[in-house]
Structures are given as structure tokens and as C-alpha cells.
């Protein structure tokens, strides 16, 4: 899809890379924001990823893999941004186990804010796996490729992320004022 532009950019053509950046940057921003939940951090991560992509472009052998390659760089940039400016979920400890939860409890979770809070409590690595799978709709092996993780780790991370989400949502549902918040 971007092969011709990639080949030009690999030869140092900055116009071609600018076109590539403009064609892929919006999608990168969408991914980065959903992982980081912060517009400015996401903006910084995307700029950092695009700059790294420019610098390292000659190491990319297969131009057809430009976007997966860029997403892998972006994922690392998101981790770096999150580590550099950790703002969320400091000290939060989530309660385990999905076994305590029944089906009906999830049907009652309608408040997007609750999900936002629960999502922010996940680690950035857990969020990345969820975003690639649930937002981009990628199968798990492709998620593994784009996050640079073994498939087993992706599966495990996905499992623990959802377990943590459920625990967090359940904790909110049980906390005082939760029902008022949900109905607000």
C-alpha cells in the first residue's frame, strides 16, 4: 500500500516521507490516544515514532510491512511516554478474580466513565494489547507482531487485562455512590 513511498523515503526523499507520515499519522494518533488516554502524550508519542521511523527507515527490508513496523515503533514510543510522564493509576491495586462475577453484572455497566476509569487503571502494556485487538480488530498473532511480544504473552496479557477491568468495574459498582454515578 505504501511501498512506493517507502522506497522513495528510504532513499532520503523527505517529501515522500512527509506523505507517508500524513497517510499513517492519523491512525497512529488514534492508537496512541487509546493506549495513553492523554492527547498531549499521544501527540508526543506519534511525533517520536514518526521521527524514529524516518531515522531507521533503511533498516526496513520489506516496504509492504511499513505500517506494522511503524506500529511497533509507536507502541514502544507509547511505553516511553507513559514511563516518562506517569500520571495515572499510581498505587492502584486491583482485586482479582473473574470467578466472582456473574453475567448480569456486566449488563448493568453502562457508564462510559466507569470504563474509562477502569481502563486507565490498566498498565500501558495491557492497554496496548486491548487497543490492537479491540480497536484495530487485529488477530492475536498480529497483535504479537505489532507489540513485539510472544503470542503466549499477548494471550496472557489480554486475559489479565480483562480480569483487571472486570475487577475494577465490580469494585466501582460496589462502592458508595456508584449507582448514582452510573445513572448520571
Amino acid at each position: 500500500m505504501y511501498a512506493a513511498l517507502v522506497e522513495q523515503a528510504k532513499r532520503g526523499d523527505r517529501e515522500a516521507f512527509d506523505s507517508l507520515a500524513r497517510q499513517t499519522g492519523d491512525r497512529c494518533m488514534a492508537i496512541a490516544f487509546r493506549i495513553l488516554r492523554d492527547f498531549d502524550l499521544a501527540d508526543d508519542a506519534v511525533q517520536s515514532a514518526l521521527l524514529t521511523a524516518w531515522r531507521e527507515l533503511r533498516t526496513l527490508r520489506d516496504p509492504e510491512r511499513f505500517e506494522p513496523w511503524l506500529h511497533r515503533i509507536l507502541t514502544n514510543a507509547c511505553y516511553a511516554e507513559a514511563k516518562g510522564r506517569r500520571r495515572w493509576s499510581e498505587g492502584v491495586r486491583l482485586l482479582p478474580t473473574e470467578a466472582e462475577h456473574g453475567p448480569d453484572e456486566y449488563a448493568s455497566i453502562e457508564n462510559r466513565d466507569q470504563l474509562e476509569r477502569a481502563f486507565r487503571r490498566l498498565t500501558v502494556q495491557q492497554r496496548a494489547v486491548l487497543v490492537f485487538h479491540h480497536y484495530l480488530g487485529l488477530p492475536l498473532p498480529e497483535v504479537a507482531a505489532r507489540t513485539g511480544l510472544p503470542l503466549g504473552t499477548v494471550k496472557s496479557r489480554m486475559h489479565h487485562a480483562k480480569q483487571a477491568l472486570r475487577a475494577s468495574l465490580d469494585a466501582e459498582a460496589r462502592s458508595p455512590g456508584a449507582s448514582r454515578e452510573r445513572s448520571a
Partner: protein
Amino acid sequence: MTAHHDLDQQLTAFLRDGPDALPDESFDAVRDRTEQTRQRVVIGPWRSPTVSKLLPIGLGVAAVIGVLFIGSRFIGSPSSNVGGPATQPPASAAPSEAPVSAAPSRMSAPPLTQIFTSPLHGISMSYPEGWFAQAATQLWTADTIPFDFSIPQADFLHDGEASFSLNLVFASQPIGASTPEDWVAQQMAGPEGCAATEPITVDGATGLIGVGECKVAAVTADGRGYVILAGISPDDPSNATTYDRAWFEEVLATVQLHPEDAVEVAPSATP
């Protein structure tokens, strides 16, 4: 509908919300920064032919000049050990005035304190403190392997979370019906600039290593072939001396091959 399914649906709907455009000024900022940023010239199997031919010649000439320069200073001095003028430091310690010091300067390479064990390839090695590891997620079944760090078939150790200027890439596969010599020769024939090789032994396994700037080694052990590459960015001039051939051999000396632990796959005629 199960609870699991409900959460998946809610998550998908939740993730649909949010910005999906990078501001124009951010695109402009990237463009401005690329104007000031050089692309990495890749050393190793994928390096550009013009660089691969000229760089060894340039380095060779610089080394000869360096040796002559250092030699003339020592020959001209009646006492070449500690008796020289205080203003004239030993040649090997001169920071930058000498064209190139013949003695390698290895002062800033981080120690090889971390150990990586491949989940797929039956290999472990030490790597520099502070580096990051990304394990292979797929088996290597093609005849040769492209050393992009984005490929999922190779283990990848690199110098920063979002930096890939210094890296080690490696993978293994059964050599199948090939002889060890043929398999190793096939691997070393692919990388650009790796035509000249010499024998090497890695953890008791024999094979070949590139000569000069080619930091690629291929060996076989118990019917399994291993390729290990060091990718070193020349953008930082100190890399050439810090992460030189001796450093690569230092890394290789830590390698442990355990083909019995590799995830096996029958050799296949992949495209």
C-alpha cells in the same frame, strides 16, 4: 450472551470514541525535525552498496595514517614510556586529535549484565545493561532471514525502548538436508558486505563470521543453524570503536546454544 462477550462489546464500543487525527502542526513539527535528522546508514547485511564499498577503504586508510602518526611520535621520542612531556598524552589516550587511534577505544560499552533466553530458538546470551529485549513470536522457516527488527521470527535486543540504533538480532532453524557448511555458506551469502568470512566457534559450534564491518555470524549445532547479527548505527562516530568486532566477539563468547530447547519445525520449502 455471556459476561465475557458483553465486556468485549463494551470495550470495542468504548475504544471507538476518541480523537483519530493528528493535528496539522504536529505533522509540520515532524517534517521540521526530519529536516534536521539524518537517516541511519545501516551497517550489516542491508547496508547500501556505496557505503559498504567505501567505508572499509576509508577506515583502512585512516588506520594506516593513525599507526604512522602514533609510530612517528614514539620513534621521535628518546623515552617512549613515561618520560614524555606532560603536554603530550599517550597516543592511545588522545581524545580526538589523532586521525584514528589504532588501539580500540571501548570505554563506554555497557557491561553485558543481562541474559536473554530465546523462547523459540534454543539460544541464550548476555547483552548490555539497559538494553531491551523483544522475543521472536514466530518460527523461522524461510531459507534466509531478513534482519528487520520488525520481523517476528527473530529475537531482538536493542538499546532503547524507542531506539534501535544498536541491536542484536538472531534466529535459528533446523538445517534439514543441508550440510552444516552449505547452510552456513547460504546464510553468509545473503547479507550485503559479508562476502569475506573467516571461521568461528560459538559455544563449541563451528561456522563463519563476517570480516570487517560485517557483524554476522552463522554456526550450526546438532542439526540446527543459528544466525546472529549486530546492527550498529554509524551515526554516532563513537559506535565504530565502542561496538566493534571485539565487542561482537565478546557478546558471542556469552552465547549458549541449546538446540534441544528450540521449538522444532520441519524444514519446509517456503517461498
